[in-house]
Each structure stands twice: as structure tokens, then as C-alpha cells.
């Protein structure tokens, strides 16, 4: 009787062993975490062609503010007024139990002399090196 019922079960394509395996896999999948790729940006990118419009000895404070807006910070150092603009970019890679968050920052520093004319410009772009990575070990 039991054999008959088992045979009937298989004939209809319902192998209990297969179903059990499938159920086990589903339970297993529901227990493990998934994956995620998340990106966060703070501030607008600095277009390099716009930075090139800043000319030493010519561009004034007002023109810089028109191009880039109000600075995030104004620093006074060594007789210079310095406008500081910042941007941050972060990329998170997460797979199961491994994750890595890389954060990079761009900084634009515009130095003004006592007349409010640009004396120097320092720009660094580190956000272009920020990558999605999952492996947290090593470098």
C-alpha cells in the first residue's frame, strides 16, 4: 500500500526527496543575507573646465562665488582668506557577511590676497579612485 502510494507520487513528478531538497534550499536561502551595492554622494562634482576659469591675479572673490557658490568653509591663514569647497563620494559593496565601504573626498581651495583677488588654487580629485569593493581583507 505504501509502495503503491510512493510510486503514484513519483509518477506525478512529485519526488518527496526532491521536494525536501528544494525546501531545504529555500530555508537555507532565507537564512543567508543577500548582497548590496550602495553609493552616497555629498556635494556637487567640480568640473575641471570650470576650475580652469579661475585665473590667478585676475579672478575675484565674487566671481569664484558665482561659479561655485558659497564655500563650505572660509579659512584665514598666513594673511590669506581661503575658500574651501568639499565633495564626498562613497561606495559600499556587501555580499553575505563581507562588506567594504570606500570613501573619497575632493577638495578645492582658493587662496585670495588682501585685495580679494585669487592668489592660488589647489584642487585634488580623490573620488575618481573610489571603487566598489567587497573584499575587506588585505589592502
Amino acid at each position: 500500500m505504501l509502495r503503491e502510494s510512493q510510486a503514484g507520487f513519483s509518477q506525478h513528478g512529485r519526488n518527496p526527496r526532491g521536494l525536501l531538497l528544494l525546501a531545504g534550499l529555500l530555508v537555507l536561502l532565507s537564512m543567508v543575507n543577500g548582497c548590496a551595492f550602495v553609493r552616497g554622494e555629498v556635494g556637487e562634482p567640480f568640473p575641471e573646465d570650470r576650475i580652469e576659469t579661475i585665473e590667478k591675479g585676475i579672478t575675484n572673490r565674487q566671481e569664484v562665488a558665482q561659479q561655485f557658490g558659497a564655500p563650505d568653509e572660509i579659512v584665514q591663514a598666513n594673511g590669506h582668506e581661503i575658500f574651501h569647497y568639499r565633495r564626498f563620494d562613497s561606495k559600499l559593496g556587501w555580499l553575505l557577511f563581507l562588506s567594504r565601504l570606500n570613501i573619497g573626498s575632493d577638495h578645492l581651495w582658493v587662496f585670495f590676497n588682501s585685495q580679494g583677488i585669487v592668489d592660488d588654487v589647489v584642487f585634488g580629485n580623490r573620488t575618481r579612485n573610489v571603487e566598489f569593493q567587497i573584499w575587506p581583507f588585505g589592502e
Partner: protein
Amino acid sequence: MVLVFGKTGILGVLLLLSLAGCDFRRVVVNDPLVADSLEELVPGKSTIQDVAGKLGAPDEIEEGAGGMVFRYRYGDSKTMRVNFGWLLRVMLPVSPSMNLGRGEGVTYILHVALRPDLTFDHSVIQPPPDTPHFWFWPF
């Protein structure tokens, strides 16, 4: 279940579950600081642009003794967590959270001092006492 998966399968499932109950997280801020790149800078001659060409724009600028200081930062933190309650999912319908975790973070700081005429003066790198490690034991 043992018949379906076999002993190796069961062990594999347990291993996977135990792995899913722990996680490794890393957060990296900016690029590593390479002090060797400053060797070509000449005190009194190299300019702000030479410094920026080697290291990029600084994260901070401060008034220094008779000049200014560029400050660069690189951060690295590692966190590991193990949820021992996760293993109970095999035997119980609920999994109480029993976490042990630890995080270690370090910041490397590089100071570049500039003279009043904004030429390079000297640099100081502050390496942390130890690099961060993954470990879950918080006590």
C-alpha cells in the same frame, strides 16, 4: 534530512549558517599616504603646486607658526561581529541575538608645513601605533 543532504551537506549547511552569523566590515577613507612622494620636495623652493602635485589637495589647512599647515588624513577601520544565536536556528524556530563584536579604527595624519612665502618647509607623518585587525572578542 541527513539522508537527503548527507553528513557533508549537513556540515556544509552548518558552516554556511555559522558564516552567515558573522560579518566582516571595513571602512576606508581616502588613499594611503605615501611619505616617499615628499622626498623630491625642496625646503624653500618647492611651491604649493608642487606639494599638491605630489599629494593632492589637503583635507585641512590651518595657520601655522609663520606660515600654514596642510593636513592630509587616511582612515582605515575594521569591524567583526559574530552572532552565536544564529546557530540556534538549526534547532529552534527563533534565533535569539547573541552578538560579540569589536571594531578597530586608525587614522594616519600627514602634516606639511609651509613657509610665509608659501614654499615647502617640512613634513611630519603620524603613523598609528598599530594597524587595525579583525577580531570579535570585545573583552
